[in-house]
């Protein structure tokens, strides 16, 4: 019984730590994005709250919490209230299967540094990303506004179109690792990270993940100069904030997933595993911010074209080539 309780306590500690790091990371990612965007556009960015603006995330969170929480007339109230939580919760749940180190030994027992080593972890991640669509679709529909509805339709179309290449690009990774578990995928990269063996899969995954994150150049669901703010036009206060928490947590999650699937996860020389994972995971958000400052928005036909006629066939061909090579090389 005491062992069972100790296990539960350990699990809670792990969940608490992971959520703390992720949420703090997301808050400071907002600041980093504002600072970097300002630099790209020859501005200074937020610099009033504390030295170099380091208290800005706290001020933003406080402001969002104090704002009035409005529900538009004619909205589907329960769905309207629940939708932002779906966006944020699905993004945070991804971290349940991300391994952030090898197992530690505490009191003679091995403690794996992952919240849950699920045997089908990769499918868990894909399922969460497809459930995340509901935050956008339900929120947009329940708002009873044309802008929101258009944003929701675009968001739904975009996200289900890019889920296909996203999932297909990971098939070669599973074939090489021989497992769906993220822990096994990381240990399969002990010799050489999969980016070396699977550069095409890496590129397809990155582009599809960028589209899934609904950021420029794929921000058609929000497109502020056509749809005001798309699916979250009618949201205010912390519910609006939850969509943003979801977006930024999702950026960090994508970073972690790219690190786990292609860059060898927590593996690396000298530095501790957790630091390596954080360094690798920081790459994707930084590139996402850079891309946002650089590229214009795609047209809708270009968006669909690149998913169905370029990325999906490429991902399928990549699976065939990988399978052929694996069979040929034994």
């Amino acid at each position, binding site marked *: 019984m005491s062992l069972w309780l100790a296990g539960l306590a350990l699990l809670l500690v792990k969940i608490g730590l992971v959520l703390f790091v992720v949420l703090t990371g997301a808050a400071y990612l907002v600041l980093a994005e504002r600072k970097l965007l300002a630099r790209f556009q020859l501005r200074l960015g937020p610099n009033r709250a504390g030295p170099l603006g380091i208290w800005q995330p706290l001020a933003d969170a406080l402001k969002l919490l104090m704002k009035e929480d409005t529900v538009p007339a004619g909205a*589907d109230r329960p*769905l309207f209230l629940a939708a932002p939580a779906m966006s944020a919760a699905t993004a945070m749940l991804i971290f349940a299967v991300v391994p952030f180190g090898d197992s530690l030994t505490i009191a003679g027992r091995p403690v794996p540094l992952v919240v849950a080593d*699920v*045997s*089908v972890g990769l*499918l*868990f991640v*894909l*399922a969460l990303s*497809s*459930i995340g*669509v*509901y935050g956008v*679709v*339900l929120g947009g*529909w*329940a708002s009873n506004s044309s802008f929101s*509805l258009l944003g*929701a*339709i675009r968001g*739904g*179309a975009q996200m*289900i179109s890019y*889920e296909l290449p996203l*999932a297909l690009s990971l098939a070669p990774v599973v074939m090489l690792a021989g497992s*769906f578990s993220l822990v096994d995928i990381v240990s399969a990269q002990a010799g050489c990270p999969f980016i070396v063996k699977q550069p095409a899969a890496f590129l397809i995954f990155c582009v599809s993940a960028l589209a899934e994150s609904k950021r420029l150049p794929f921000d058609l669901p929000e497109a502020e100069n056509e749809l005001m703010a798309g699916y979250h036009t009618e949201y205010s206060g912390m519910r609006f904030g939850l969509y943003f928490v979801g977006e930024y947590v999702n950026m960090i999650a994508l970073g972690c997933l790219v690190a786990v699937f292609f860059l060898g996860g927590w593996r690396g020389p000298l530095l501790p595993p957790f630091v390596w994972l954080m360094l690798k995971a920081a790459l994707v958000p930084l590139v996402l911010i850079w891309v946002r400052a650089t590229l214009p928005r795609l047209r809708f036909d270009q968006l669909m074209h690149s998913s169905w006629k370029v990325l999906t066939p490429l991902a399928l061909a990549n699976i065939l080539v990988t399978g052929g090579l694996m069979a040929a090389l034994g």
Partner: protein
Amino acid sequence: MQTSALVLFVIHALIIGVGGIMAVASRSLVRALVGLIMTLFGVSGMYLLLNAPFIALMQLLIYVGAVVILIFFAIMLTKAPAGGEEERPNQVRTYLLALMAGVLPTFVIGWVVLTDQPASINAPLETGLKALGQGLMEPYFLAFELISVVLLVAMSAAVILAFKRRQSR
């Protein structure tokens, strides 16, 4: 272990039942769809209880993640109003037939399960992914391919219908 499994079974059965009632009884189409999603989640939980995590997540990925989103799409694009011929009260005969359609399978399946218990009913065994894949690719290859033919037919029919409408315009 047995009692906790039973408790989880009841919770999932309740989720499935409530979701099903919501799907049938809601006036708003989107609410009905949310009920359907609840049911699909409950079924996926049942698969987890049966120790089949792969099937459970596939259920979420395919049904919740793709099929229901497509239905959503149709609803949002057409902005279908609530109400219609389903809303008129049915004849008693229809209700009786519906009840029979529900009760009959329950009895047949219940009878089969009670008289001929599968070995896995007490402690479900997890089938490894390798065994599952080999099963699909070796003994059940024909069935697997036939399903893909069905999907291919549906897909090409959709494309043909879409092109026909474009030409007649």
